[in-house]
């Protein structure tokens, strides 16, 4: 069933990570992605990986789900790892024709693989513990200063809210249209690529027509409910930073200092 696809894999819970302010989580994710790619030596890389993994543990989401989130990109990790293996300068340890592996190449490959895995894990902590609505809210508020530069932040957030709201509705509709077309003898599963793509046309056209109709209705509904853009709009749910949030931010700042010091003092791995 097409409607089995889950989007925004949020797992409701009440762990520390769930209770953290979504803005803090969003900033931390960006912060960690930055750190993980700036780690130049083993000590900082290990420390960053460990602190990032503490987020995974604190989220109390089953480890199985984190492994599942890595599954689709195993290939990418392996591919970039292997590619980096052959991309080092220095004394070759092993060589075959034009291919050669150096010590730097091995280090590079391991580092890039670790970085990618951690990148996926920390983004998963964010999406697993934050509902799509909270996430949109956080993005709107974090990016708010950009509105001064005439970036339509509110409009983007509103579009995301509506998109998230309508994804399940449209998936359900696609399912219905597919069944209806199959009932009329449409063959969606056989033939070559070209034929299969052609078979999608009778599904996409009704889907688009209905999406436009929905958009008109929705516009009427929004206008009827006094929507007139972001100006003068208030929110029911306001975000407040709690003690835990300030604590986490302080720890992040302290860690940043440590990170900079270690990077400056210790020799780089390569």
């Amino acid at each position, binding site marked *: 069933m097409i409607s089995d696809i889950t989007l925004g894999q949020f797992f409701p819970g009440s762990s520390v990570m769930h209770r953290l302010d979504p803005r803090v989580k969003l900033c931390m994710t960006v912060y960690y992605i930055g750190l993980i790619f700036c780690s130049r030596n083993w000590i900082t890389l290990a420390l960053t990986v460990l602190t990032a993994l503490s987020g995974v543990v604190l989220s109390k989401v089953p480890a199985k789900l984190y492994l599942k989130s890595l599954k689709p990109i195993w290939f990418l990790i392996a591919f970039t790892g292997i590619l980096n293996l052959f991309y080092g300068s220095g004394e070759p340890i092993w060589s075959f024709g034009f291919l050669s592996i150096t010590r730097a190449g091995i280090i590079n490959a391991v580092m890039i693989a670790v970085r990618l895995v951690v990148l996926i894990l920390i983004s998963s902590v964010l999406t697993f513990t934050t509902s799509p*609505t909270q996430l949109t809210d956080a993005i709107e508020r974090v990016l708010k200063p950009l509105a001064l530069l005439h970036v339509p932040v509110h409009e983007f957030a509103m579009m995301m809210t509506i998109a998230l709201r309508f994804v399940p509705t449209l998936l359900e509709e696609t399912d219905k249209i597919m069944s209806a077309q199959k009932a009329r003898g449409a063959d969606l599963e056989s033939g070559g690529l070209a034929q299969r793509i052609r078979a999608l046309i009778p599904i996409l056209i009704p889907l688009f027509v209905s999406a436009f109709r929905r958009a008109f209705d929705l516009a009427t509904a929004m206008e*009827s*409910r006094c929507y*007139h853009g972001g100006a003068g709009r*208030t929110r029911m749910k306001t975000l407040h930073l709690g003690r835990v949030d300030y604590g986490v931010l302080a720890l992040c700042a302290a860690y940043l200092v440590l990170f900079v010091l270690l990077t400056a003092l210790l020799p780089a791995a390569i």
Partner: protein
Amino acid sequence: MADAPATPFITLNDLCFSYDEESGEVLHNIHLDIAAGEFVALLGHNGCGKSTVAKLLNGMLIPTSGKVLVDGIDTAVEETQLDVRRRVGLVQQNPDNQLVAGIVEEDVAFGPENLGVPSEEIRRRVDDALKAVGMYAYREHAPHKLSGGQKQRVAIAGVIAMETRCIVLDEPTAMLDPRGRAEVMDTVERLNREQGITIVLITHYMDEAVRAGRVVVMDQGKILLEGAPREVFAQVEFLKRHHLDVPQATELAYRLRAAGCDISGTPLTEDECVRAVYACYAAQKGVGA
């Protein structure tokens, strides 16, 4: 209820409307007054202009000529459109297409948020509105997991959270199953009775129109007939000539009378019909009713 007080809440004055030049006029010289607290049903078959009237009532459409006044405010004036829309809310036919947010309570909060109501006040209004339509228990659900009737009730809550004084419902039950239809109609009736909210119900279900205080029948962009449900539905032949139905109970009584049974009055509901038929039967058999 049929006679409106001196200053009606909504006035349609000599209203004409056309979407564009080619398609011609959709509504011709409509006069209609709706009093505060009234429950009006607007009847007519497809294409008679009733949905157009719905959009004219809250200023989504502007009359080509004539005026629509809501609480004394002209809907054609651009600057006061928000004032019109916070007084007259609109609930549309398709339950899927009018909910904006991915969580029920956030959707209900959408209207008051647009009006700039303070956060705590929105919270209170949302809770009250959800309780008023009996959807409070579902406040944290996703709209796509609800039934059609539940979605329409959430849509109604979204309108009353703006503290609107009038709700226009444009065929709100057309896409619902019988249970959803009953849920929505009971909710609408209760809001009218308990909170004094003015209701304009646009429908083609005669059995729903029976529950209104006043019925307005439209055909080809004109008002054909207007009055209390019993007065209107008594004119079975006139309505049939205009390809309109009457409630099932009324229809049955009409046919029995045509077949020679002595059925009195115009029964509108099943109960009334049963009583009328029993009275007729009892009179024939000579038993006391």
